[in-house]
């Protein structure tokens, strides 16, 4: 399995290289460059030319790309044109917010979505299943920005239970941190858990009709013992796949939720970088998100062999 993991990691390198090229050139081909944004309505050719020269934006594109790539291999991700802070530092600051939001949303999905899905699949086509299906439909259909805004209005403004926005880091206290993250996690986790719910429901339906389940029932195993002992393991591959995909997209940051709750996460960082044509920051952020996706996929694939001993790499 170690060999397989190494092979996968090595094969990811050309993918990342290709993505770096696409990201680099595509954003520079969009009309309006950094000088245009910074000067806005006060744009004059002279001021713009001076700015471009200062940031090395007047050099030929391939040359700029190679300079950036060279720096990358030395561990230098460059710096933000806007704030002059190193890209690595800005990413590290945004990471805890996004990581915690992702983790909490996943926990929500795992502890609510999976059990509900099991219930629905186990009692297929009966009342619990209908309830679960409706819940899942609502979870997927309700826009998370609407849910977030509604929660702010009721839980924060009217009931004063939670702050309306902003991130309180763990270093300021676990309680304060969880309070500030509760509403965003629920707003985001709702949709994720609905997707996981549907996936675990269909996985449960598939498994529950198998021969070995009938055998187990015949031997007198039923209810929770049946599910925990014989069903969970066999449904996990489908569920873990879905969870992996959701994690990948969550780690890319949820721009809308971050805006509503004023959380300075990876999503808003990327959006700000794109709007400001802050090229180096943008490239660093997109490359980071892509790497996360590749890593998550690898972990998910490796986990298959843990979940199903018959799968060997």
């Amino acid at each position, binding site marked *: 399995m170690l060999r397989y993991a190494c092979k996968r990691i090595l094969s990811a390198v050309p993918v990342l290289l290709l993505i770096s090229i696409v990201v680099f050139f595509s954003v520079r081909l*969009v*009309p*309006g*460059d950094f000088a*245009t*944004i*910074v*000067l*806005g*309505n*006060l*744009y*004059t050719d002279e*001021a713009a030319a*001076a700015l471009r020269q200062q940031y090395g934006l007047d050099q030929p594109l391939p040359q700029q790309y190679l300079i950036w790539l060279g720096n990358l291999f030395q561990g230098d991700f460059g710096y*933000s044109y*806007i*704030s*002059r*802070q190193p890209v690595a530092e*800005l990413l*590290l*600051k*945004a*990471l*805890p917010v996004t*990581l*915690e939001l992702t983790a909490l949303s996943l926990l929500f999905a795992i502890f609510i979505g999976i059990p509900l899905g099991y219930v629905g699949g186990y009692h297929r086509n009966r009342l619990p299943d209908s309830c679960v299906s409706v819940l899942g439909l609502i979870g997927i259909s309700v826009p998370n920005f609407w849910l977030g*805004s509604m929660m*702010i*209005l009721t839980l*924060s*403004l009217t009931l*004063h*239970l*939670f*702050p*309306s*926005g*902003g*991130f309180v*880091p*763990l*270093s*300021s206290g676990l309680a*304060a941190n969880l309070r*500030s993250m509760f509403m965003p996690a629920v707003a985001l986790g709702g949709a994720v858990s609905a997707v996981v719910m549907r996936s675990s429901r269909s996985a449960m339906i598939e498994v529950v009709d198998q021969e070995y389940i009938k055998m187990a029932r015949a031997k007198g195993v039923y209810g929770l013992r049946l599910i925990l002992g014989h069903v969970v393991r066999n449904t996990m591959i489908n569920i873990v796949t879905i969870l992996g995909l959701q994690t990948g997209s969550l780690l890319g940051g949820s721009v809308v939720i971050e*805006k*509503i*709750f*004023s959380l*300075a996460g990876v999503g808003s960082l990327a959006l*700000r970088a794109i*709007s*400001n*044509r802050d090229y180096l920051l943008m490239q660093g952020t997109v490359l980071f998100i892509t790497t996360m996706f590749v890593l998550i996929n690898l*972990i998910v694939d490796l*986990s298959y062999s*843990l979940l199903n*001993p018959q799968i060997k790499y």
Partner: protein
Amino acid sequence: MFKRHSLLLMMVLGLLLVLGACAGAPQPETEQPAGGEQANQVKDTMIVAKQSDPSSLDPHLASDEAAIRCIENMYNTLLTYTDGYGEVAPSLAKSYEVSDDNLTYTLHLIQGVKFHSGRVMTADDVVYSIERIKNEGVRASHFEKVASVEAADDHTVVITLSEPFAPFATYLAHPCNVIVDQDAVEANGGKLTNADGGTGPFMLEKWDVGTQLSLTKFADYWEAGKPVMNHLVFRTIADSTARSTALRNGEVDMIIDVTEQEIAVLKNAEGVVVESVPGTFWEYLGMNCEHQYLDNVKVRQALANAIDRDAINAAVKMGNAEVLHVANLPSTHEAYADLNIYPARDLEKAKNLLAEAGYQAGEINLELLVGSDWQYQVDAAQMIKAQAAEAGITIAISALESGIFFDNLNNGAFDLTVVGWSGFVDMDEYFYNLFRSDGAYNQQNYTNPELDRLLDQGRTTLDHAARLDIYQQIQQIVAEDAPMAFLYMNNYTVAMRDNVQNYIVHPTAATIWLKDVSFK
């Protein structure tokens, strides 16, 4: 079996370790009193919420609203705005004289002003700062008439102009034309992007980019007893509803950019005071005067008469803006010409003008560019499109992302546009660069030799009454020639908690009075 379980367990433990490590990593600190918990403690921190984060803290380079609002609290100018619109008063220059030929300005500096580094400011710093403004380009046009600037002694600066320049005193009060510490500039590689080289009431404590800027009181500030607050925090909350919610919750003390939609909500909120004054942000329908149809003045006038400014104001600005019936000067400006050239929509006149120009209804097709970031401008564009259609002009709207939008605008790649300008004070600012034939911001490619002559006269005439008369004529020409169809001048609205006192809401949106502010 056991081996598989332990591997899974190790993966989970690993994830927990990663989360734990992130707890120790440097993170943005925000103050979060939920639901007004800290309301009863003595507050020494003023938290101001705004929509965007500053692009940079370098005063001579920054041009965005968010940056200027932060910078003006960290730095000082030679002269400063007063609470009246259009007036300037002494600041770092405690007095000044102008020679009889209006070419020489002798400024006397306050003695003992210190930079935040502790070094005393002298006339050499003023000379350095003015040279830097000219070199950095962004506001060099403010000082383009300066032939020389010299330090006569440690506390006297002599500025000599190449020709009389009426707006000069106003430009010396612009919040970004500040005096900077040369040592600070050089210590930070020639830029003050995230460094502090000022003399202002507050100094830079910490800038969490994208989240908030924390400033702290400068103990050696030259104005006695100022600033009153110990800490000033500018917090970035991008979503307008989140911003007003934070104010209603008591999580922030003031919002300096209240949107029209939020005004009604905030007016009804408990513990919140809303104050509106006529502002300096005016919006217009710009017309590219080199376009095949728009180079005909009658076509432009047809558009200017076809649009219903009052209806757009009512729908887009909830009736809160002041409709512009002449040119871009608002009625609050001393040079306002009460000519009422576009009193109301005149559809018949628009159709007649189009016919006189030789075009039939439906013959003219134009593209209107607007920035998708500014929904109120997109909405105004939609209404203009409908109104112009009734006059026989067909408009197609392109809402573009801001970078692409400005790129097209600056390259003259547009027929029509809806956009705005803000921050102008002197009458020269409202007209010269925008309408003069080679004007730096003349995106409409408008040219009129008679207007050029008047504009040149307007900025070299220092006699006040004569100047007002010149600008009356300028407004008449600009309104009738219609390179722009002027829409409205927006109100500037600030909302604050009811325990905030001594703040002045200024038409230019300047926040320099934050040094006076305190809690009841």
